């Protein structure tokens, strides 16, 4: 990663980044407004409740279990599909990425429908692991593919067994990617309400919701949400520390090779297949089969195909618009942090992540607060909804943008300058042109998450604008699971498209790879998911 240290970023870039950052900070600003208006007495009483801390501990424990579970599942699975001769491994990688398309509340509903006795901490942990392990799997798979095989070969020559060599050399190279993915998972678990409420885990988000639902109390809810922000900041900081400590092992500057595949014995091949098959059954099979069963269960309402189609189009459109805005907002921030690192730019990124642990209802209210007080004519328009998605999921896009831009050597841009390009066209024709698949991958991640979003959608959508998520909600609200099933299935199918595209970035065919900078470009594309 080359930085143009000491060179002042151009003013328009700073201006654009400042605007993006301010927008990313909206949820935090809202929390501050609410917390300040709460007054010290209320803050104290919210913080001093035993239940606040009991549920915090529960949430942290759940987070820990889910993160460990994701690592335990995702790392071997990633190794199997990238570094072994597992039959159909490219297909497996794609299929293993698909749970990204399943919202936690849908997975939880589906499992409860089949196994009503499922409840509590471990049930929630299982479902959260099942829907979030791809956040670790994809970046780790990418890192394993691009890890320098020379180091592993040296370890082999020093007497390590293939497995020991892999564990002691290649695996450490994938750890930063695993850490980045774990951060997303951890923040996701902290902010999740769907799975924990359905499995009746006394998690922290339930206390926040109880504040709204039981007492319509915005201020103490905000105080409680601030705890989540604090936890998120600690996690972001820890991940950054870890990333800083771990070394990048690329040593050779010559042509990159890809490590040879580990040849599985008959027994290990069967074990491997059983392993990935079980993951797929738990994460995709059960929810989808359960929903299909609900379909056939019937309902007093007949399915309106046009309504379903309209909701599908709305979901895709709003989420796509959100992804486009997110990419646009992330570009200046990502560019600034990749090329001109400073305390300021790192702080910005952390702040954007901090909001990521907030439950959707808090983010939704913060945008209600902002739009109604600044641009009331935009309130509850498609623009605001798309914009909300962008703000909600901006960190995903910033990370992707930063890593893919950082991977493009600035010398390309400079060379373009000497060949007569002004700064902007030099940038678009080299850096942006090379980095954009990675940037687009970040956009895909926003797209896919935005499709599944519910609480902010309910608050900010234009009146009468129904998405798959809202239609599903309105049916499950009244226990019409049969009527909801087509919407849940359509939502999964729709979100599967960007999930599939994301996995394609990693599993696509690689030909002979040449120059050093090109390798870096490539790996960055793959890193983006976890970044």
């Amino acid at each position, binding site marked *: 990663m080359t930085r143009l*240290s*000491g*060179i002042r970023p151009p003013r328009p870039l700073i201006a654009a980044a400042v605007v993006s950052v301010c927008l990313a900070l909206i949820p935090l600003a809202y929390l501050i407004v609410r917390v300040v208006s709460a007054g010290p007495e209320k803050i104290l009483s919210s913080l001093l409740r035993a239940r606040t801390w009991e549920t915090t501990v529960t949430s942290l424990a759940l987070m820990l279990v889910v993160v460990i579970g994701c690592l335990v599942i995702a790392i071997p699975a990633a190794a199997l599909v990238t570094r072994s001769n597992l039959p159909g491994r490219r297909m497996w990688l794609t299929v293993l990425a698909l749970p990204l398309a399943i919202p936690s509340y849908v997975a939880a509903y589906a499992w409860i429908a089949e196994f009503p006795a499922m409840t509590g901490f471990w049930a929630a942990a299982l479902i959260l692991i099942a829907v979030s392990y791809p956040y670790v799997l994809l970046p780790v798979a990418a890192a394993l593919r691009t890890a320098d095989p020379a180091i592993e070969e040296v370890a082999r020559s020093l007497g390590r067994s293939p497995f020991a060599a892999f564990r002691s050399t290649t695996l450490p190279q994938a750890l930063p990617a695993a850490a980045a993915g774990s951060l997303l998972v951890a923040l996701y678990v902290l902010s999740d309400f769907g799975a924990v409420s359905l499995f009746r885990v006394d998690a922290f988000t339930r206390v926040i919701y109880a504040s709204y639902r039981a007492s319509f109390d915005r201020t103490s809810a905000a105080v409680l949400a601030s705890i989540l922000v604090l936890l998120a900041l600690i996690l972001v900081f820890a991940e950054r520390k870890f990333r800083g400590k771990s070394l990048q092992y690329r040593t050779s*500057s*010559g042509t990159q090779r890809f490590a040879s595949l580990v040849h599985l014995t008959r027994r290990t091949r069967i074990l491997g297949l059983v392993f990935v098959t079980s993951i797929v059954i738990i994460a995709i099979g059960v929810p989808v089969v359960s929903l299909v069963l609900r379909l056939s269960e019937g309902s007093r309402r007949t399915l309106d195909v046009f309504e379903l189609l309209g909701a599908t189009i709305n979901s895709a459109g709003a989420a796509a618009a959100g992804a486009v805005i997110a990419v646009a907002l992330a570009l200046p921030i990502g560019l600034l942090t990749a090329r001109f690192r400073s305390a300021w730019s790192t702080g910005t990124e952390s702040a954007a992540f901090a909001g990521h642990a907030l439950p959707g209802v808090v983010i939704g209210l913060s945008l209600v607060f902002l739009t109604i007080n600044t641009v009331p004519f935009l309130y509850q328009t498609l623009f605001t909804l798309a914009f909300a998605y962008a703000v909600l999921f901006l960190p995903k896009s910033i990370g992707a943008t930063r890593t893919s831009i950082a991977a493009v*050597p600035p*010398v*390309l841009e*400079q*060379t*373009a*300058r*000497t*060949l*007569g*390009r*002004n*700064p902007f066209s*030099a940038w678009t*024709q*080299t850096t942006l*042109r*090379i980095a954009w698949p990675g940037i687009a991958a970040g956009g895909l991640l926003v797209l896919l998450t935005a499709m599944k979003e519910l609480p902010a959608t309910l608050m900010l959508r234009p009146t009468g604008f129904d998405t798959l998520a809202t239609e599903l909600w309105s049916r499950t609200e009244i226990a019409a699971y049969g009527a909801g099933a087509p919407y849940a299935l359509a939502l999964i199918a729709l979100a599967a498209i960007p999930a599939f595209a994301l996995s394609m970035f990693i599993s696509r065919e690689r*030909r*002979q*790879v*040449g*120059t*050093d*900078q*090109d390798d870096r*470009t490539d790996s960055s594309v793959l890193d983006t998911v976890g970044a």
Partner: protein
Amino acid sequence: MTSVELAGISAGYGSTPVLVDLNLQVDSGEFVAVLGSSGSGKTTLLRVLAGFLKPTAGSVSFGNMMVSGPGEWVSPEHRHVGIVPQEGALFPHLDVLRNVGFGLDRSAASAQRVDEVLEMVGMAGFAAARPQELSGGQQQRVALARALAPRPEVLLLDEPFSALDAGMRSMLRAEVRELLTRIGTTTVLVTHDQEEALSIADRVAVMRDGSLVQVAAPAMLYQDPADLSVARFIGEAVELRAMWNGSDSVDTSLGPVAVRGGEAGASGPVIAVLRPEQLVVVDPRPVGDAPARGGTGTVRSVSYHGHDSLLQVRLATGEDIAVRVPGESEIAPGASVRVLVTGAANVYPA
């Protein structure tokens, strides 16, 4: 083609100065190599020339036009400089044709120019290849073609050969030199490889800690280094401790040696610097009754280089020196030798 002048340039990153009051004049069509170890500021100098970094003081002129100076700034895209970065830095998303044509408009003349420069660098027929498919040397050729295509006023080479293997390096180096002489481009090369600098440049500028310590033709630099560290940096130095009284010869452990130059005003304890090829090894026994010249010592090791061999000799005084002898010499380690000096030495304060 144009001349290049850097006058009083200071530049740096943030509060860290890298270049300090640097002056350099490159004549039109001249090839100057800036030689320095890593961290000496040579890449910064290149960035100042290309316009990637604004100096904090001083001016840069191309011919009569000031491109950087008080109140003057010409951005990189308007400087008409060509640059060949380390490892080529070809645009990985473009094929060779588009890489080379990047600095040209889309006219027919441009297409012709692309063919012409590809021909020039010996890469005709590779227009459709992608950078990944080329070897390191081929990538460098294309990078050179890309830089030359828009007919730059000044060509900047940033360690362009360092990533290549030895054979490819010297071959490409010679070819590039020949090509640039033919088209007469004013060229600045930065490198840390003294052999490269000496072999390719009209003049070599030795850089240290952000300043130029000596700018001279390669032979001059080799024969008359400005100070001891330059002497050590350029080629192999034989250092002999001695006392000098300012006269035209100095007494060393190899006998009296004529003083050619060195750092003015050095008298008292000095180090006399010779080059290995100025030493001759002879049989240690005295010939006839002529007084014994030179000094005696023992050969500690011999490294064979084909055309010659390098002997490490420990003198009777305990000093270690390197001596170059013809390749067919049969001197073995342990042999006693007498070392004679031909020519003159440079003296520097000890």
